[in-house]
């Protein structure tokens, strides 16, 4: 699985991208966030305000309950501010 981070979420976590094998018990975005939060406090800090986290699975906006698998590209980012 590839995970991408943008904007201040990227800064909190300290990297823009990482890839690893998804543990078999992690099957949704929500579980993925819980899993990452267990790794260290940087993730906890980045994901603290759930309502500010937007999620994309394979470059498409997706809800937090979305099913994911090891071939997916998941992205976490704040509400967009372009234009």
């Amino acid at each position, binding site marked *: 699985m590839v995970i*991408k981070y*943008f*904007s*201040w979420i990227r800064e909190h976590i300290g990297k823009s991208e990482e890839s690893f094998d998804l543990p078999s018990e992690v099957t949704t975005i929500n579980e993925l966030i819980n899993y990452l939060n267990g790794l260290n406090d940087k993730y906890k800090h980045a994901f603290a305000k759930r309502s500010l986290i937007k999620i*994309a699975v394979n*470059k*498409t*906006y997706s809800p937090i309950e979305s099913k994911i698998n090891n071939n997916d590209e998941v*992205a976490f*980012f*704040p*509400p*967009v*501010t*372009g*234009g």
Partner: protein
Amino acid sequence: MKKKNSPLIDIKIQSEDFDVTKENKKLHNNQPGAIVNFVGIVRGVDEKKNETIDSLSLEHYPGMTELEIENIVKESCQRWDISAVTVIHRIGKLLPSDQIVFVGVASKHRQNAFDGCNFVMDWLKTKAPFWKVEENKNKKKWVEFNSLDNDATKKWKT
């Protein structure tokens, strides 16, 4: 109104500036009678905090940005009879008074061009994955999402 011909669609994410006159020439598809442009310009003040901005930097999600803008543009071409749409969004470092975004919509009829352009801008503001960080002396500050932009999209929900 439904579309009649296949519209020309051009979407570019680039650090270089753009020239509206040149872009408008490329929008001359299928004899449009009307072109409406939106040009966004970097302001030198953060209005909420009344602070000066020295520069702005834009980050985006390559691949997803293009997909999201394409979806928005195609939706506009379903809603209105539009002959061509160009969207250019700049990334990287920009200074106050720089052009940041261009949306050009061509149509036979002016109201279609106005509505299509307005629609694309409203959804681009809420959907396209760009993030701005403001630089003021040595301070960096990520721009916060403006809830008025969400409100603006409500006029299209019918």
